[in-house]
Each structure stands twice: as C-alpha cells, then as structure tokens.
C-alpha cells in the first residue's frame, strides 16, 4: 500500500514539475485539428509544415460531419486553438478558432486547379496560421524550389518543387541543364546554363515555356546571383579564366569584376555595392569581398579554411567549409554561421557533406544540401528555433535556388 501511495505521489510530483517546466520554457501553442474530409496526404503536409515552421504544434484529432457544427471547447483542454478543415473538389476550407479568446480568427477558402499541387495549398494555409498566431512570417514555405539533378554523365535536368519536395515537376531535360536561378520575385522566370558546344545562358518562363538565349560563354558560365536586372556570373571570357562578371539585362553589357589568375566563383550581391565571393587567391578557397566603388578586395572570414560556397544576408554569412583534405577517403563539409558585426560564429552541422547554403529572403531560414553517396537530402535550418529538418530525394541535386 505504501509503495502504491509513493508511486502515485511520484507521478503527481513529476506531473507538477512537467507543467512548471512547460510554463517556464514557453512551449509552442497547440492546435487540435478536426476535419470532415481531409485526405491522408494533406494531413501529412499539415503536420510536416508545423514541424518545420517550429512555431506551433498540430494534433490531428477527430473526424466531424461538418466544419460549421458547434465547437465543444471542453474536448480540447490543453490546446490553444482548434483548426477545422474540409477538402472537396480542389477546394480547402479552413476555420481557425481561438480556444482562449473564444473567437474565429481565420476562415478562408484555398482553391487549386488540380490535386497534384496540393502541397502549395497546404503551405499557403500554414503561412496564414503562422501569421494569425502572431509569429514572424514564414514566406519561404510558400516559395517554389528550382533545382538541377544529375541523371547520367553529361545529362542534368531541371525540376520545380515545393520546399518539402512533395510536389515535383521536370521542366527542362535533354543534355546538360545546370545552375537554375529564379529571375523574379514571383518565380515565373528562371535563368539557367545549357552546355552546348559552348555554355549558353538562357532565360526561361516556367509557365509559357518561352526560352530566350541571353549569352554564349566560353569554358564555363554560371549565374551565381540575381538582383533585379543585374546578374552576377562566373564566366570565362578572357584567356579561359573563371572570373566574376556583372551582366546588365537591360543593356546586355558585361563588366568584369575580378581579374585574379586563379579561381573566383560564387559571387553574391552583398551590402551596399559590394560582392562577396569564393577565391583561392591564398592557395585555398576562402571568402572575399570586393567594394565595387573603391575596388578594394578583402578577406572576409578568418576562421577555418577551404570555404567552398557562401551565402550572405545583411551582416550574416553562412559558408560551407571543407574540414578534411583527403584524396582517397570521404571528406567532411560543415556549415558555419558568422555574424560580421559581432563576430559571432556558430557551427550548424556536425559531420557529413553539407554544401550550398542559401538564405531565405528574410534571413531566418537556411536551405542547404546534405549529400550522401547516391542521394541528397534538402536541409532546412530554422536559425532562431535552433532546429534542422531534412527531406530526402532519391537522386543527387547538384544546384538549387528557392
């Protein structure tokens, strides 16, 4: 009997402690979900979105007959919100109810032309839920990804997908189609390189299929960054030398920005009238910046060697750095986050091959690739939430933009 009392007392105390811990750590709000019709595939994305947004938690609870039927709040003690969903005839109706303030805070229809684009519909819903709950907007979850995939030697195709890689569509195939980059905020246009007799830069409208030849290079031609009508290219025009060029789409003029005899690649627009790029001017690849007004080139990061790719957002820089130098064994590439103002450095990954980091537009999320021997994983890092998520794809992604 004593043992039994002790057992219940332990559970009670543990429960009390757990509650206190939850309160102190300000746990994410909980959303219970009721649905009248919601295919499993949609339920999966609703859950997946809440996981990668990392601002709220979703529990798919009960099937109901109608989403407008009266709400029994008593059923959802411990939850902050109730989300009711109904999907029918390519239309999702969502109703979000605040269980604390006892009022509807979102009631909206989301329509799609065909079922296969359902991930984008759910991402739009997740974006709205996050906003209604008062968190920092997650614009990135609604964006489309564009990426090139290795198919066979001298053959790469370009695909469009959502950020969870659930929706995927091949848009360009046949030959070497590489380095796609979004050309506009609405994500209608991409720039990409096709390796023909020479590398050729194309502009391509993903909706109309209209393709326009912009530039023929020599040796290599890559769009590294896009800012309005200006493209930063890695191009070999003079003496087969890979340098960074500024290409003005309006005037079709080219300006050579670097002239180093080694390797200069991966140019990114940075701060006011500066570029940041990877160069091996000290004998190993590292991050440099060039002030386009003064022409001064400076090393940017003094921590680590062999920085093979870089992405910048205001004062924040993220680099992929090769931490081993083995010719005949697997090498390790990790991501480092550096704030230039405070010199704060944080290692974001621990082991494996982590490459091609890209900041989201608001800088609070990073997408990158984790490469395995025969496949890739798309990694999503939520910086403030201190979390990393991965989505597996059964092929190797070579480059991407989102």
């Amino acid at each position, binding site marked *: 009997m004593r043992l039994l009392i002790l057992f219940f007392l332990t559970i009670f105390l543990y429960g009390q402690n757990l509650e206190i811990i939850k309160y102190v750590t300000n746990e994410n709000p909980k959303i219970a979900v009721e649905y009248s019709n919601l295919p499993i595939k949609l339920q999966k994305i609703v859950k997946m979105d809440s996981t990668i947004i990392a601002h709220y938690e979703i529990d798919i609870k009960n099937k109901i007959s109608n989403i407008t039927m009266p709400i029994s709040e008593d059923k959802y003690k411990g939850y902050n919100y109730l989300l009711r969903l109904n999907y029918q005839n390519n239309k999702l109706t969502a109703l979000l109810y605040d269980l604390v303030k006892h009022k509807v805070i979102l009631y909206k229809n*989301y329509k799609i032309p065909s079922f296969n684009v359902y991930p984008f519909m759910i991402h739009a819903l997740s974006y709205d839920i996050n906003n209604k709950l008062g968190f920092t907007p997650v614009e990135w979850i609604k964006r489309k990804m564009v990426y090139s995939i290795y198919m066979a030697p001298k053959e790469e195709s370009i695909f469009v997908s959502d950020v969870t890689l659930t929706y995927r569509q091949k848009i360009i195939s046949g030959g070497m189609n590489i380095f796609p980059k979004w050309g506009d905020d609405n994500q209608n246009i991409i720039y990409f390189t096709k390796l023909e007799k020479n590398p050729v830069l194309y502009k391509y409208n993903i909706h109309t*299929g209209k393709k326009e030849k912009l530039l023929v290079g020599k040796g290599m031609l890559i769009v590294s960054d896009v800012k309005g009508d200006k493209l930063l290219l890695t191009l070999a025009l003079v003496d087969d030398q890979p340098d960074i060029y500024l290409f003005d789409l309006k005037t079709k003029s080219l300006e050579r920005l670097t002239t180093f005899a080694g*390797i200069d690649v991966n140019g990114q627009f940075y701060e006011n009238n500066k570029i940041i790029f990877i160069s091996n001017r000290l004998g190993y690849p590292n991050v440099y910046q060039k002030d386009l007004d003064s022409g001064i080139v400076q090393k940017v990061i003094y921590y680590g060697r062999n920085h093979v790719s870089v992405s910048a957002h205001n004062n924040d820089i993220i680099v992929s750095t090769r931490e081993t130098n083995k010719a005949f064994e697997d090498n390790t590439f990790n991501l480092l986050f550096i704030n230039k103002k405070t010199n704060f450095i944080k290692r974001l990954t621990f082991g494996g091959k982590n490459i091609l980091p890209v900041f989201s537009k608001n800088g609070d999320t990073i997408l990158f690739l984790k490469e395995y021997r025969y496949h890739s994983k798309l990694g999503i890092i939520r910086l403030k939430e201190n979390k990393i998520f991965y989505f597996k794809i059964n092929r190797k992604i070579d480059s991407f933009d989102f």
Partner: protein
Amino acid sequence: MNKKLLLTAGVLALFIGCGQQPELDVNADQNQTTAQQTAQTTEQNITQTQPTESDVTGTEITVTQSSLTEENVNQKLAKLLTKEVIHFDFDKYNIREDQMPIIQEVANILKDAKGNFTVRIEGNCDEWGSDEYNYALGLKRAKVVKQALVDLGVDPNKLTVISYGKSNPVCTAHTKECWAKNRRDNFTLLP
C-alpha cells in the same frame, strides 16, 4: 472580403501556373520540326539543281572519295584522342610530372593531324567540392593543359576548353580508384 478574394486569386494564379508548366519536350518537338523543314528544303534544292546523268555520276564519285578521306582522317584523330586522358591530384590543377609524356603525345597527334579541326579539352572533377567551385576547378584543369599544348607547338586556334565539373564521371562507384579516375581532362574532336 476583398482581401480574401485577392488572396484566393493570387493562390489560384500560382497554381494555375504550376499546373501548366510545360515540359521541354514541347520545345524539342518544335526544334525537330524546324530541322525536318530544313532537311526537306535542302532536298528540294538538290532535286531542282540535278544535272544530266553523266555529270551526276562524275560529280558523285569525286565528292564521295573526298568525303570518305576526310571522314577517315577525322575518325582516326577522334579515336587517337579518345585514348588520351590527363589525370590530376585531389583539388589541384597543376600538371603532374607523370602526365607530361601524355601531353607530349597529344601534342604530337595534333601537330601531325591534317586539315581543319577543333579539339575540345574537357575538364572534369571528382565529387568532392561544391558545384560552382568544381566547375572552375575543371576549367582550370582544361586551361593548363591547353597552355601546355600551345607551349609544345599546337595551334591555339584549334583548341577550346569546357568544364563539366563533377557531372561527367567515367566511374560512379564511391571508391578512391573512381575519384582518381574522375579527376581528369578528356579530348573531344568537335564535328
């Protein structure tokens, strides 16, 4: 209400766009049609300019001999070049000493070859590197070999370079032997 409608319309526009994304096959078909049209036009021209029976016979023999000779020369050159591969060390684009005799051999082949031709030096990398850096590394590998060939007396106007980064492996296993094989330059005779 208006805001709600606008949002729905925006979302709808996005999805309509996605649903209508065309495959490149559409363009490929268009290109094929253009090529077919060109071929038909050429055929018509030949038919229109057909000479008398005796002239046709004489002309045909001469053209055939010349084409065959040129074809044989090119085939031979292409075959010789396919065998030549220059290998590099990990993350390097300087020419190794043991690779110099191969470059000398390529130089001899190109200097001996007759006629107008262009050879493309293709730089390739292993899988260890980010994509942009690997493309640049491949290009530098092609560039140093081109310079070495020019130094050995090959006409620079007969040489072009391109980089395939890590997208043209000859060996796809994840072994040290494969990685070493993929760090290389190939030579391709352009048509």
